[in-house]
């Protein structure tokens, strides 16, 4: 197929990660009482950025290998 699914996955996760991390960094810090005092938005946002960038890297490195002909 002509769309490598890793690209949209990578884009979405990077985007979500950036949104969450930015919100965690700049937003209200009082809301983290629920998450045991952990700034889960910032922390998990970073994890999602790493995963998203990794997916983008895999998708962009070279076009998806055509499956071996049978």
């Amino acid at each position, binding site marked *: 197929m002509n769309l490598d699914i890793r690209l949209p996955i990578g884009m979405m996760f990077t985007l979500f990660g950036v*949104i969450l991390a930015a919100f965690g960094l700049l937003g209200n810090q009082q809301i983290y009482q629920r998450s*045991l005092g952990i700034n889960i938005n910032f922390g998990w946002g970073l994890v999602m950025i790493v995963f998203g960038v990794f997916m983008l890297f895999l998708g962009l490195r070279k076009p998806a290998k055509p499956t071996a002909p049978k």
Partner: protein
Amino acid sequence: MNLTALTAIDWVIMFLYFAFVLGIGVFLKKYMKTSTDFFLAGRALPAWVCGLAFMAANLGAVEVIGMGASGAKYGIATCHFYWIGAIPAMVFVGLFMMPFYYGSRARSVPEFLRLRFDEKTRGFNAFSFAVMTILSSGISMYAMAKLIQVLHILDVPLAKLGLPLSYTFHVSVIVSALIVLGYVFLGGLTSAIYNEVLQFFLIVAGFLPLVFLGLKNVGGWSGLKTQLPTAFTHSWQGMTNVHNNPLGVEWFGLVMGLGFTLSFGYWCTNFLVVQRAMAAGSMTDARRTPLIAALPKMVFPALVILPGMIALALPTPRQAITVNVNGVQQVMKVNTAGQGLIPVKIDVATGKQAVDSEGKPVLDYDLAIPNMLLHYFPTGILGLGLTALLASFMSGMAGNVTAFNTVWTYDIYQAYIHKGAPDKHYLHMGQFATVFGVALSIVAAYAANHYNNLMDFLQLVFAVVNAPLFATFLLGMFWKRTTGHGAFAGLATGTTAALMHLGLTLPHGDVVGMKGGWLGAVLHTYPSEMAQNFWTAIFAFMICFVITIGVSLATKPREDKELVGLVYSLTEKPNEGHLAWYARPVFLGVVVLVLATVLNLIFR
């Protein structure tokens, strides 16, 4: 009930997800040139994509919510649905059955039955399957709308639009139907599969932090163990006797009923999952698909069952939480009755707490996972968690819709209504079938809302249709003497046997009705609904097996040359000699089985 404190950021995440989902459909539109592109993703997808979709297609929200609920109700014994009830069957379908499904070039499971047996066996399977997909997709839509209602997700937006709260159900059903319709109509199976892969990663992203926070709160796995009864953290304890374990089944019923007949009947013959493997680019990839799916499947209990167990273990009553909704401070109501985060079920008719036959309050286990999300997630990541939940509802629907449009077009429309049209005609029919499949699902969703029994009815249909199926496929693929008349007679009597068994038995504590006993006499009372369901499957399988053999021996067999590629003994074994040993499906299958055994031993 809890008030969901969504802010702008949560909505942004939700809308971005919908934009991605529809965007994938729009992008794929131009590649939908033939019916094979639309119904089988052009048979060109890599194994890992098909594998994750194979797993995620089954991971609808009914499954996510249901597994969390069972985790809270039965504890770790729920893992049997994964480790016993899925893994062995997934390995079997990959190693032994995929060569026939993929090798025969059948475009659907009913079409395989047509090639192997005859027209009537295909018709039987195609019609019953089409009805089941529509009902399941409708139920999925209904469950989603109900959840949105219970969590009050749409309260604020509806208020802003000046609409009454009763619109929540309509808005949820229509919006989810339109999104699913949009991306399946545009991109066919490819679109559905891609979105299932997206959903898979999203569920992991949404639930992993939940498990992390939950476990941290209860003091890790060892902390959880001290706060739950021992039977909740040992999956095999008490399995020698039906009365000693929370499931109410003994090991034989569990292994034969769930692990063999039901599980193999589902994973090996249900077109909803098999279609994902048929979309793979090569035979080796098609065989790897279920095996790759089995790897995440094994560890998924940690994401879907564990949160349910944690929800039960948390202390009650909890502190009230103050949240800020659009600038107004509101105090979230705390459940006054219940256990952990799980509230007591409220009877819809009376508005009072529901009680069981012994007068004890009934817990609303289905709220285990949603309440966990609300309890631990602040705004921001809450949007992510809810999006993951919505994604699983929608891909559960989309999976059923894609299976429906294929079976409708190839096995009903092309077979009985309009043969021999150009391929383009069937492509358009598929798109049209997507529209009316979704329309029928909406009808089913409203029916479910109207008749409380529809969910029970669906389970009954599943139990009856699914139970004998594996006997037919097993004999068809591994015994060349099996005939079409034999298969049809076996299926018909097996299904009837399942109906009779359900009609003559009753689970403990249930009244005569949809749950059983409607044939007038109750010959046996099972300790639980699960036990009844397992034994229904065992009986139906045995009857189907015996009748198929009997009738086959009495009827004329087909010639060997017609069965090449359809029966094990007459089919060339897939040649995988060119692959390194570690890349061969057999090796992967062995790894999966060893890991599953290890998990069972650790959590015995």
